[in-house]
């Protein structure tokens, strides 16, 4: 008892770990092409040390050796480094704001291209498809749902989710201004729900890495929520420029509720449609 909490950690070790992490990220980039070098370090370190503690490896340097020589280990670490926590109608107020502030704009377009960047397992893609269907827009959209992680992308493509969270999602759906019954959009089977196939009729799920890939289409709306928070300022700015280049004039940019354009050099090129929900519109005249 006398010694509890008396373990002392030499701050010098932190410096060593910083170097090791930089080298590990460099190794990942050069060997596999995934670039985490401009991700926020606090989060990256947390994921790496978590994997270290369960791997039996002694140090981050040893992990680097393992990553370079063992592709399976790399795949595991890649999953650790990508965030796949998401839900249907996450932040219901955001979807309510889309109905109120964005749908009237979209209704003026004959055809609408939407890009979900960093779509993860697809919950938010299906949520948006439900909303668009209820607003009578689903027939005239083309949705590109992208992520750099093939595993989550496959899950998104399948559209099968655990039944455990359906109660929570139903509440979210209602709070988001849903017009029907949430159960109209899925079929329950054993412990899963299968989303209505009609919802993904106009959705293309594709591999795209925001950090290393470039513009692939001109779109009317981009939804990228809770992805930029993982990037440092420089990378945020680069990705927002990519969004700017991908959007038509008058195009809509939707960020996570705690993300904003304020620090970006593209800021003057946008105006807020709904500041609280972080919904922006690219100006017609710049």
């Amino acid at each position, binding site marked *: 008892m006398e010694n509890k*909490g008396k373990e002392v950690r030499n701050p010098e070790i932190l410096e060593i770990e910083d170097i090791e992490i930089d080298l590990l990220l460099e190794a990942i980039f050069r060997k596999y092409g995934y670039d985490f070098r401009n991700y926020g370090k606090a989060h990256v370190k947390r994921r790496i040390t978590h994997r270290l503690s369960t791997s039996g490896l002694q140090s981050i340097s040893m992990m680097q050796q393992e990553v370079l020589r063992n592709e399976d280990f790399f795949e595991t670490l890649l999953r650790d480094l990508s965030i796949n926590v998401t839900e249907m109608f996450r932040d219901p107020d955001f979807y309510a704001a889309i109905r109120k502030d964005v749908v009237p704009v979209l209704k003026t377009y004959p055809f609408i291209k939407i890009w979900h960047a960093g779509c993860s397992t697809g919950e938010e893609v299906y949520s948006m498809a439900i909303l668009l269907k209820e607003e009578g827009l689903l027939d005239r959209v083309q949705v590109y749902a992208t992520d750099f992680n093939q595993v989550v992308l496959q899950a998104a493509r399948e559209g099968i989710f655990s039944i455990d969270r359906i109660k929570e999602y139903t509440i979210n759906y209602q709070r988001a201004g849903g017009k029907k019954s949430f159960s109209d959009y899925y079929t329950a089977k054993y412990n899963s729900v299968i989303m209505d196939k009609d919802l993904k009729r106009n959705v293309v799920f594709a591999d795209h890495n925001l950090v290393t890939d470039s513009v692939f289409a001109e779109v009317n709306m981009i939804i990228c929520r809770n992805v930029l928070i993982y990037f440092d300022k420089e990378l945020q700015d680069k990705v927002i420029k990519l969004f700017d280049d991908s959007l038509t004039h008058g195009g809509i940019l939707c960020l996570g509720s705690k993300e904003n354009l304020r620090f970006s050099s593209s800021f003057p090129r946008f105006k807020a449609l709904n500041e609280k929900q972080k919904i922006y519109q690219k100006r017609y005249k710049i």
Partner: protein
Amino acid sequence: MHPGAVVIGASAGGMDALAEIIPKLPKTFPVPVIIVQHISPLSDNYIATYLDKMSKVNVVEAEEKVKPVKGKAYIAPPNYHLLIERDKSFSLATFERVSFARPSIDVMFETAAEAFGIWLTGVILTGANHDGARGMEYIQALGGKTVVQDPETAEVDTMPKSALERITPTAVVPLKEIAGWLIKNIK
């Protein structure tokens, strides 16, 4: 300029405990205060508004990329983890709950310990779980100060008690004296 910070973790009963501490801090308090209070993921951040009205320091929600400054107290937003980068700026993250909590006190404390080292003071308050205990241990391991609310004065004593199971803190302080302790010991 003092290079440190005070980090505070609270759960059940935390609103009242924070309302006892934060309003007593002078505007000239030499370091920023960073708070994780467990809260419903769907709540608006009324704690910041509520505490700000009664305090001399400016109480705001922690925003990503912002570097905390003295004269202000920052509250982690609901449903996001708050992390402190080594350059002392805030990061937010949505990864899975830690000890059933998002924001997690451990996550904020552990990253703050690495950012502020010996200049950090960690304070653990009332709560019905074990979040924060590991964070307090890490703060101590990196040479920071640790203050545990006297469990006798806590609305729910589980959280201060679990911190006391892991560490012998710098001080165990009754709720009403915590603000005074901080003012006296952080200069």
